[in-house]
């Protein structure tokens, strides 16, 4: 990955990190979108989609509810998609991409909490102006939050890619496991998290578990026929 590719990916990470909460929450930051776009930037959209689909299974567990702390999937998925996109033929690329993306998402969640604390500090400082109805204070606080979130996403993606460029190269250079088994292990981890999330999410709804069982029968039948 060249420096200019990392810079471009960091810009993508900034835009998609912004989408998580600040603007426009159109779910461009979901892993299935973000990792695909990241892979596409490196010339391998299909590889990015592969990483995105696996990460999407993990992301089903974390709903972006208000004040709760959850992984920041936008910037994280850019990192995951970039690893698979850059090393499309390497056996362990998906495993490394998943680990990197989940770790970056975890750190990203922490940076979002810090940003909210920072926003609160600015809001406190501007409180007298806001309480007297000053337009510039209200608009200023909003735009400062937006700009800071953009910078947060950029720095997070940039630092993560700089760290994972040598790490990814080193790990994938000494990868010993078979390619299909490697993929299978990575997706087993992701799908287990996803399956548990689906169960926890829908089991409380009346009859939903029967819909799940019915869907599973259809899915397994379709899988067997393919």
């Amino acid at each position: 990955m060249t420096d200019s590719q990392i810079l471009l990916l960091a810009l993508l990470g900034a835009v998609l990190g912004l989408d998580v909460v600040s603007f426009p929450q159109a779910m461009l930051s979901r892993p299935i979108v973000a990792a695909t776009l990241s892979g596409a930037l490196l010339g391998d959209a299909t590889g990015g989609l592969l990483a995105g689909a696996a990460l999407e299974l993990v992301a089903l567990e974390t709903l972006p509810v208000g004040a709760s702390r959850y992984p920041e999937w936008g910037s994280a998925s850019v990192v995951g998609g970039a690893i698979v996109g850059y090393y499309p033929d390497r056996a362990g690329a998906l495993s490394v991409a998943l680990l990197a993306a989940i770790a970056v998402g975890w750190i990203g969640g922490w940076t979002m909490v810090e940003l909210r604390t920072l926003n609160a500090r600015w809001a406190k400082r501007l409180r007298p102006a806001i309480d007297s109805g000053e337009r510039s204070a209200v608009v200023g606080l909003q735009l400062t939050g937006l700009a800071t979130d953009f910078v947060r996403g950029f720095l997070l993606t940039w630092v993560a890619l700089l760290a994972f460029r040598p790490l990814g190269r080193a790990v994938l250079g000494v990868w010993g496991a078979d390619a299909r088994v490697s993929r299978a292990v990575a997706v087993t981890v992701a799908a287990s998290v996803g399956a548990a999330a689906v169960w926890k999410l829908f089991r409380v709804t009346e009859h939903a578990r029967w819909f799940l069982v019915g869907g599973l029968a259809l899915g397994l039948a379709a899988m067997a026929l393919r």
Partner: protein
Amino acid sequence: MTTGASSAALEARSISLPVHLQLEMAFRLLMIQSAWNYELLLGNGLGFCIEPALRLLPGGPGGTAYRQALARECQYFNAHPYLAAVAVGSLARAELEMIPPAKIERFRTALCGPLGSVGDRLVWAGWLPFCSLLALAVYGLGAGPATVLLLFLGLYNVGHLGLRAWGLSVGWRHGMRVAPALATPILRQGPAHLARAAALVAGIALPLALGRIIGPGQRLLGVVVVIVALMGALATRLPAWLQGWRLSVGVLAIWIIYSIAQHTVAR
């Protein structure tokens, strides 16, 4: 009997919001959470979105009525970001109808709970997982990147933007009498219907997506499906603090170390 407030409300029926202000408010709604913080939560964002309408108050922008209303609307507020559009529309109308401040504040407080919980169930626990799982199912069926992205983003945002537009419109139309409009079947029964649909799609999507990611070979796939079922069942029993995604970092790290060790042994 006609109170002062309701007669003011009757007079205000003729209030109209110019299209450019409606569009500005709709655009600002997309960044309602950009200054989300632990001090005011969504409060400043709410005031930021209502501000264009407040320019129509007597005295114009900067006038006493404008400043008092803006200050009022920037206080602590919490709601789902999409359904906050209902609050933006109805509070903008209430301010322009010059409803007494105490009444607006009570109404504003009362809106927080329902707009938060309904939005969370309808969008975060219903529409988002439904669209996400549908995209995974389509991916599992062999669709390419463009198809998957267009389907997911197109479908999700029809609901997302539609909900915001509906919220702003219904809030503005009904003002402080918005409560009956919130009893629409979509908001009351929608989450349960969506959960059932999403459960069905989840069942279809999981094996198909697994199959596509692993690649051809029924035997390995069969083993993976069984392991996923067992590990998934175990993961549902995890304590709340130990979520699956956290645990997966450890499992993947062990797997990577094992794979590196395998390479070293083979040499």
